[in-house]
């Protein structure tokens, strides 16, 4: 279908624009101290260019959403690829909203790279448009998932501003607990990058490792069949009780515990291990190049920004994102669950994690509003909150099987 083809192109264009926008943002912030330039003017000029690129990218992505919605016949939120791409769309949208309020475009220097990572992450999943299975055929799919993604997108901007606050304010002269944890957060971001790098590199190579489970499982038609698991990345972990039927570049080092459910569990674990390893290597490499903490590397580029403003933006984003998240991820979810299964709440792992995110941000708001946790404490909370969202999206979806698990990597 042509619309689908068009939507793919639009998304690629958006991706490219976000990448360029991120680079220009970095230039706007790091290049301000280049010789012979007026720092303020440099920052303003490049910041504006980057912002405009982001807006055009956003328009392209809007085109993607519309084209895929019409072409596919349902909102592009029905599998992991569509959801991650939509979440990315929401992050950019939230950035544009926050920009309208504060007219501070440097937030984009953190949000746009985050957007690039998220979109790249989505590209890792199977992209085809699949028709909806009966349980997803409800208008609540559109309402619940889009609102939840919007809430998470706004909270992501809260995270970006919080992280900027920390990089701006944590003193880098001496090593402290704060500097260490800040490095951990940056390393986690690099693990996501590592995952994307690994996945896109190996997907292009013809070196799959294929395992066959020794225990036959019933397939869709009820016939017993030996299931196969295909690894795109070199195998570190073999599925429990399986045999290699096509060897890859390396032989597995160990076997996954048998309780990891489903044929894909071990592959997911393998992928996660590779992401962690690449992330650590990337981090180590960068440390070797710069010979100082990454926080210290980034700090000079944000030193012109008022910390109070970052604190306020982070809080503002969270105070806008929290109600939207509550509505989408909890209330609409409950209404749909009531309509589809007759129970609005069932303590399904995905439900529980949505509740955990909500409880966490509730604690954040109470600490901030009632116990005066502002500044650094508040910024740390916003960072942890987003990490919990990532756990919900990545780990719970991929590792803990439940009613909500989308198929995929």
């Amino acid at each position: 279908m042509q619309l689908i083809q068009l939507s793919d192109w639009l998304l690629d264009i958006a991706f490219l624009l976000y990448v360029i926008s991120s680079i220009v943002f970095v230039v706007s912030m790091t290049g301000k101290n280049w010789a012979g330039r007026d720092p303020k003017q440099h920052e303003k000029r490049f910041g504006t260019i980057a912002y405009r690129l982001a807006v055009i990218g956003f328009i392209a992505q809007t085109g993607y959403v519309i084209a895929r919605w019409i072409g596919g016949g349902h909102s592009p939120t029905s599998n992991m690829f569509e959801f991650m791409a939509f979440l990315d769309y929401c992050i950019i949208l939230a950035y544009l909203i926050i920009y309208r309020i504060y007219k501070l475009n440097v937030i984009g220097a953190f949000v746009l790279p985050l957007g690039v990572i998220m979109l790249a992450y989505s590209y890792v999943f199977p992209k085809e448009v699949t028709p909806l299975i009966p349980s997803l055929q409800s208008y609540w799919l559109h309402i619940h998932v889009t609102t939840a993604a919007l809430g998470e997108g706004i909270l992501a901007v809260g995270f970006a501003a919080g992280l900027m606050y920390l990089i701006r304010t944590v003193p880098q002269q001496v090593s402290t607990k704060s500097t260490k944890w800040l490095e951990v957060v940056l390393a986690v971001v690099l693990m996501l990058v590592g995952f994307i790098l690994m996945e896109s590199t190996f997907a292009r190579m013809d070196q799959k490792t294929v395992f066959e489970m020794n225990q036959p499982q019933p397939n869709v038609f009820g016939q017993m069949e030996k299931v196969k698991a295909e690894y795109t990345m070199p195998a570190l972990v073999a599925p429990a009780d399986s045999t290699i039927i096509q060897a890859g570049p390396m032989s597995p080092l160990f076997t996954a515990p048998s309780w990891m459910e489903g044929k894909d569990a071990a592959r997911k674990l393998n992928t996660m291990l590779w992401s962690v390893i690449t992330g650590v290597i990337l981090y180590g490499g960068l440390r070797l190049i710069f010979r100082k903490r990454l926080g210290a590397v980034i700090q000079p580029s944000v030193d012109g920004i008022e910390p109070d403003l970052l604190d306020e933006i982070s809080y503002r984003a969270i105070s806008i994102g929290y109600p939207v998240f509550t509505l989408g991820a909890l209330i609409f979810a409950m209404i749909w669950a009531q309509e589809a299964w007759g129970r609005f709440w069932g303590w399904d792992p995905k439900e529980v994690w949505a509740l955990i995110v909500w409880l966490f941000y509730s604690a954040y708001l109470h600490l901030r509003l009632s116990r005066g946790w502002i500044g650094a404490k508040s910024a740390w909370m916003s960072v942890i909150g987003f990490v919990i969202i990532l756990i919900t999206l990545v780990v719970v979806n991929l590792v803990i099987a439940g009613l909500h698990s989308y198929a995929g990597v």
Partner: protein
Amino acid sequence: MDQRKCECGHTNPVGTLLCESCGKPLVIQISEQTAFPDMRYEGMARRSQTYTKKMVDRVWNYFSSVKIAIGIIIVILIASAVGTVFPQQQYIPVPVPTEADVARFYTNTYGTLGTIYYQLGFHNLYSSWWFVTLLVMLGTSLVICSLDRVVPLYKALKKPRLNQHKSFLKGQKLFAEGELAQGTDQAELLAGSAETLRKKGYRIFQTDRALMAEKGRFSRWGPYVNHIGLILFLVGVLARSIPGFFLDEYVWVREGETVAIPNTPYYIKNLQYTTEYWSEDEMPVKLELNGGVIAKNYQTDAILYENKNADLPGAKPDLVEIKNGPIIVNHPMVHESLYLYQSGMQEMQLGALNFNLIDLKNGSKEVGKIKVDLYNPAQEQVVADGIKVKVLDYFPDFIMGKDGKPATKTNLPKNPMVAIEVLDEKGKLSEKMVYLQGSILTQKSDPTYGIEIKMPDLIDISGINVRMDKAVPLIYFGSFIFMIGVAMGFFWQHRRIWVQIQDGTIMMAAHTNKNWFGLRREVDGLVEQMKLPVTIEEKSKA
């Protein structure tokens, strides 16, 4: 000692931080240091903090603390996360009929950690006594925290803080001060300022030398409104335990069968069950399905009856049709508060065996058809004129018993064995034969009658989940109130701007509970427009 007098003459309750009338900090140390009381509760005395003698007051104070509330939230958060480490008992993917099976499942699948998980009761964490207690504690904290703060806040906000003590203004985050030029018309200045602010949507309170402009006061009620929503929500959750409020039943219904829905006066009949699959031309793009299919629809066409004779379970029902229609995933059948969900199916199950009775002595001519309904086999059926077939023995799920006699494993026709007798009245013949696993065994070596196996009747069985939850409207209402509350609190801000003239000096102060940048812009606008001779100082709170 119940009251405290301020130098302005007003008497305040004990525990008040800022004089209710003039706003001067009441505790000496505070007024002399730079730390100014937080404006959250307008410096009012919170009831709970003043009386601690009685037991009741101690419990009250405990739950009135936001610190405790946050503690409860964090504990619930951690406990909830622990509950997702391994599946809860209800999500165990294999059947576990007894408690011992449950224990074995955790030990066998998850090893030692699983055993510990089970022994600590984490497999039923969310309904454990301590988790329920935590939830009730959260509810308690919601009620008491709100009650304890909303009353004094209401009293404080009811009376606008007009004409405040200088230290009150100075204590605000945004403060400005400046000498007025000789001969400035003070009344005009104030009136002009009032007009500017009114245009920006402020409500103005004014005396001859003081002005207070206020906007969005209602947003201060947001937290209390959303807490009321949460309390209603929790009450709704609790109400589900009231007998008659909640029902959760599961029935398997064969096509053509009418079954009682337990604990209700209703019966359901399955007219037909269908699964549809997406055809290739319906798919937006061509997919590599490797011969697989994607389901499009699961649907049971059903009739819901009410039994007018429901007082005596098991007695012959007197059924009245109530509703006739489809039950589809995401589209339950609804009758009053009763919801029927399409929730499972077993397709192509054996329903009846079909045979042709043939006359072997007469060129294998077909004599007649035999049908054995596997759920309700007829004792006797007339196959042709003068020829009857009797069912002698029937084992729905054949197994050879320990005593060497045939027996059944279950009461479901998974592997039926049927022994029949053909009675020919004309020929005075009686021949017995047995059907088992697709073959026929005859008693005689040279029988007259034979049997030809035909295609059996295959039927679908629908799993229908029947639910009732009368608390749902309250739960939705609570959620709705909660959303109104958070929207009030987060999307609007309470802004106040004070302008006061005292001994030839003009003082300005501003306060908001959120979005200082927005407020700052409005104050800057006012200063610019009225050309107020002030310098603005902004304290950093971070």
